[in-house]
């Protein structure tokens, strides 16, 4: 009998707790966000909540996965893509409020290797050493798309050539569906090298991963667009969130995570002084 009563009380508490939490989060905006922004956007989302008391619910995954989900009826207020390709597909299919789309940040792909660097990779030319284990993204996920572009540039360069790219591709052991799987496999030491964004090597990962920069002439610039979906129930709040991302405060967070600011002139001066990418002001 007592057990039964305890059981009933537990159920009642659970029901109350869930309904209470639902009531509390009645107003929230949903942002489908590229996996590479996980750290930065979680922080900006918290900022937004502190300012407006509205929470932002994130769904972090490969941009192409997010696009497929939205195409198949998933609800989102904001779509944040790691490349313009996925955003343009959404735009052409009529999902986006076109005037709201804005490129807000940039980053660059880098080569990442485990801290102890078992394969002793020092530069991009080492990637052709036979027997390496390299992980890259699938051709659909933005980081994979960028990686293939970089490899194509290397194939066209006389210093490397098509043979080099072939050797690198022969070392690829896995095509991951989002960039976080690439960084985690390298951080775990399962792979000898991978291609990820510069901004992916966060503070937590810096103790496990070393970045190797790719020379600018072979590299590509990853542009991140974000925009509001037509289906959004809270377009005004969504716009406020976008404004926050583009504000000095938002840009400071992005910069902390290794992204290069695009919009705010005050911050882009700083970025230019870093002199890593002359294209940052373009």
């Amino acid at each position, binding site marked *: 009998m007592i057990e039964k009563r305890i059981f009933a009380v537990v159920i009642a508490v659970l029901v109350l707790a869930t309904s209470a939490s639902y009531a509390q989060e009645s107003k929230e905006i949903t942002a489908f966000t590229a996996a590479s922004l996980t750290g930065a956007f979680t922080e900006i989302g918290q900022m937004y909540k502190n300012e407006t008391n509205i929470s932002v619910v994130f769904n972090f995954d*490969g941009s*192409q*996965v997010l696009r*497929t989900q939205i*195409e*198949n009826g998933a609800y989102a207020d904001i779509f944040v893509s790691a490349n313009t390709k996925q955003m343009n597909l959404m735009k052409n299919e009529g999902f986006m409020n076109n005037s709201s789309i804005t490129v807000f940040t940039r980053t660059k792909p880098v080569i990442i290797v485990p801290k102890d660097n078992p394969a002793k990779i020092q530069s991009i030319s080492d990637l052709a050493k036979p027997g390496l*284990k390299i*992980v890259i993204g*699938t*051709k*659909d*996920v933005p980081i994979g798309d960028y990686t293939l572009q970089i490899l194509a540039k290397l194939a066209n360069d006389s210093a490397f050539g098509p043979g080099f790219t072939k050797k690198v591709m022969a070392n*690829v*052991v*896995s*095509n*991951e*569906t989002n960039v976080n*799987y690439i960084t985690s*496999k390298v951080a*775990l*030491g*399962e*792979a000898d090298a991978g291609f990820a964004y510069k901004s992916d090597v966060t503070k937590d990962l810096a103790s496990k991963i070393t970045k190797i920069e790719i020379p600018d002439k072979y590299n590509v610039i990853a542009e991140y667009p974000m925009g509001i979906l037509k289906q959004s129930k809270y377009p005004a709040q969504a716009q406020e969130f976008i404004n926050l991302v583009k504000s000095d405060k938002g840009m400071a967070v992005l910069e902390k995570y290794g992204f290069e600011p695009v919009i705010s002139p005050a911050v882009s001066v700083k970025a230019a002084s870093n002199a890593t990418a002359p294209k940052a002001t373009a």
Partner: protein
Amino acid sequence: MALNQVELGHTNELPGQDREAIVIPSRTKEMALKAGLGLTLILAMTFIALPVVSLFVKSPLDATLRSLYDPVVMDALKLSLMTSTLTTLTVVLMGTPIAYVNARFHYFGRDIADSLIDLPVIMPPAVAGIALLMAFGRMGILGHYLNAFGFGIAFTTLAVIIAQVFVSSPFYIRQAKTSFEDVDTAFEDAARTLGASRVYTFFHVILPIASNGLISGAIMAFARSLGEFGATIMFAGNFQGRTQTMPLAIYTAMQGDLNVSLCLAIILVIISFVVIALVKMLTRRVYKNVRD
């Protein structure tokens, strides 16, 4: 409807009513029960059949047939069938003795062993994937030593099989154990008194009687391997022809072209269905032969 009828039956059964009044409602009650069960059955069937039927309705047949010539599809199909078959063989060879021992003998820690065998069933596949990496990965507890001898497991077809064995073995061992428990020890004793050795008794008496259960356990393990996704993508990675099994190919294709992934899904459904139906037919025949 059905619910209402059942409740009505209940109210008629209130104490203080005469016997005849109780007999008639009990018949209505039985009918209501039958109607309720029938309705539940139809609902359950629809619930399972609708998504499967939708797969077929939503995908263009010609594209599905054409996609069979796509190397991605062929590679994934071959790899899936190959790994699932090897997994099932491994599970049967390793699992049968374990199941027999646990069904027939009492030893210290048997309950713990039993629970351990079942553990992968309740483990989320992602957890299984991480656990396998921590054990057999390059930096893993065992993998660390294997790697020193130049033997890496992660990202290989072997990793796919290990992941499948890990998640599917409980399905076979559980079923096999129950099947062995159901074999009447009288048959065993009779064979032994007639002078048959323990090994002879096992292969000629116990195994044939338990075979039906063993085969259905093996089908379950095969089906679970065929569908394995989470542990594989974490532990073995995703590479066409080497570690990209059907579920991984379906997931990868869905990100580019939903149609390709629909086609792949249909092929997987048909193959799973054919394999299961074939094995069931085969079992019935073997079982019949044994009984005759």
